[in-house]
């Protein structure tokens, strides 16, 4: 066990993947000598060489598009997109090819790859560096969308993603890249894709969230619990598509109340799908309408206001109050 930050755990998982599978190739902008703008690939080119950790030209369609060919040709590409706001030049390749190559060739060719993307805001980054647009990927059949909320899951989920036979969009919450450390085993291990985790059990309200928001929810929750003498169950969804219906429904059926918290803008954020499904599936147990706390329905602003765009602790608390006081 080593104490690691989330970004170190990502680095460790990438090292493990490169070491244990010859087919793994990392490609992206500045991931070589520079070790990535967040240092997620630090030291990997020095160790595994320029053939396996590749600085590409500055072209996201090229990165994703060649990854399709690399994967179809038997490699296991792990492209890095520098920030989520810069994935769009590669969007056509993702929705028309990455997500569909299996179907388009009736499984003769497949495009298993892990597209790593730092996402989310609140690091005082410049414009367009703080997007949370997981909806675009979760809405696209054929893709798997994963995001860890802590170093342990980061390594385990990333190693799962590398082993997956399907393409995975791996969203890395920049806000908590370095904000805390956790014991992470040195040996390889797997956190399964498709299974949510109850990070804190409770009987009165279920709060479903993911990525960097998990920590915020835990903090905000602690205050509500203290004030109101209630118990909140917090679920870290971990896989956003396909998400773990069993865990979510079981929890809400137990608590009768659900709040969903995410950084993405509220309108058509993943919370919409969760709320729609919970409202349908848990209707007989629900004691209050499902409440969503999301990013404001406006573009992520320049950084001075970004913390107010994302759900604040106060807004999270108000969401919980709302379902309790219905």
């Amino acid at each position, binding site marked *: 066990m080593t104490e690691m930050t989330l970004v170190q755990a990502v680095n460790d998982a990438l090292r493990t993947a490169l070491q244990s599978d010859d087919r793994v190739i990392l490609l992206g902008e500045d991931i070589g000598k520079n070790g990535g703008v967040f240092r997620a690939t630090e030291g990997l080119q020095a160790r595994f060489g320029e053939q396996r950790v590749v600085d590409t*030209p500055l072209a996201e369609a090229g990165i994703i598009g060649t990854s399709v060919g690399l*994967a179809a040709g038997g490699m296991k590409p792990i492209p890095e997109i520098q920030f989520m706001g810069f994935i769009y030049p590669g969007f056509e390749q993702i929705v028309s090819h990455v997500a569909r190559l299996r179907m388009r060739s*009736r499984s003769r060719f497949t495009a298993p790859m892990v597209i790593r993307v730092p996402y989310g805001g609140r690091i005082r980054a410049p414009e367009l560096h703080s997007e949370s647009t997981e909806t675009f990927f979760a809405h696209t059949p054929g893709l798997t969308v994963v995001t860890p909320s802590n170093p342990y899951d980061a390594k385990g989920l990333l190693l799962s993603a590398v082993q997956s036979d399907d393409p995975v969009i791996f969203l890395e919450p920049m806000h908590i890249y370095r904000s805390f450390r956790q014991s992470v085993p040195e040996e390889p291990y797997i956190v399964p894709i498709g299974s949510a985790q109850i990070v804190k059990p409770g009987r009165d309200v279920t709060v479903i969230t993911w990525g960097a928001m998990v920590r915020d929810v835990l903090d905000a929750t602690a205050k509500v619990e203290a004030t109101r003498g209630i118990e909140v169950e917090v679920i870290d969804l971990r896989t956003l598509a396909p998400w773990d219906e069993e865990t979510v429904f079981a929890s809400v059926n137990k608590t009768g109340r659900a709040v969903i918290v995410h950084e993405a803008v509220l309108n058509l954020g993943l919370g919409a799908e969760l709320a729609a499904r919970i409202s349908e599936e848990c209707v007989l147990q629900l004691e209050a309408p499902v409440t969503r706390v999301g990013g404001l329905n406006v573009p992520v602003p320049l950084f001075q206001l970004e913390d107010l765009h994302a759900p604040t602790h106060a807004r999270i608390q108000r969401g919980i109050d709302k379902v309790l006081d219905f």
Partner: protein
Amino acid sequence: MHDESPHFADAVITTQTGVDTAKETQSLGPFDIPATIEKPEDVQDELLIEIYRQMALLREFDRRSVRLQRAGRIGTYPPLEGQEACQVASTLALRKADYVVPTYRDYGAMMVHGMPMEHILMYWNGRPEGAVIPQDVHVFPLAVPIATQLPHAAGLAWAAKLQGRDEVSLAFFGDGASSEGDFHEAMNFAAVFKLPVVFFCQNNQYAISVPLSRQTATETIAEKAAAYGVTGVRIPGWDAVAVYRAVRDAVVRASRGEGPTLIEALTYRYGPHTTSDDPTKYRPLSEAESWRERDPVETLRQDLNRYRLWDDAKEAELQEWIHETIQAALAKMESLGPVNPLELFDHVYAKLPSHLERAKAEFLTELSHEQTKGDAQ
């Protein structure tokens, strides 16, 4: 077609080693590579004949498919008549392990490289079986979004290179595709990483209705190669031998680690963009007629006659075989029952996720319900 296509290049390529082929074809002037007049010494007789046979088959397949569409037996179809030399002679320059990376119009190249003809028919008939590519056939699914296949070809070539397999990717695209960002990025990646890929542009002068002069301010597509530090070649796309040589040479270079080549083949589609298109809206009929004067299939047949490799008896026999081949493929397509609706759920993920398993079960129930009620839409 699968069985009928010996991979001549598997033998030919090896004999080419050492020849500095780049010089021969590196030229940008229009029609700088003259149409073949002398019997080519560097192309075996059997190969010449095979090129002709496949081109003739393709011509007839294409005409038949248009009629099938008109009769409602298949869906929208993009004819290639006029481009046969581009697709056949290029692909016959490949080795079996090389990849064909096609667009919607390159089913000719796909078939030459081993895609069963009936699958092509099924595909244009909107059937999932049409998307099946046999395991040993190195053909990528045809790309519908313009230019998106070009980075795939670069990636396939990259994978081969990294894994030490001598496999070259031959990517097809149109003149219009040269305007898309994906063309640019693919060319650049291929050049920077010196990938074994051949970019083969069938410049048929139009992107649907838009003429080349509106697509680019350059005279040629080939000269765009310079922007990437890539060899650019411009060839008469109606001349099967010129096409064959250009691709053969490019494959040799790629296979030797000398990087990508951009080939521009001048050609013309005689017919509409697809069966939904009306070309009289945007170009004079006389244009197609003047291109027919150097028709690729006719030209090669006459050449073969001149070389005494072909005669009317052989032609009659060939036409018989063509007819039967197409008839057999069509029969295979039409022998299929209705498409199994459950195919909808196949090949979306490696393993059906539980939400789709439930959706599939529900779908099945609804389906049988509807079939009972007989009120399916």
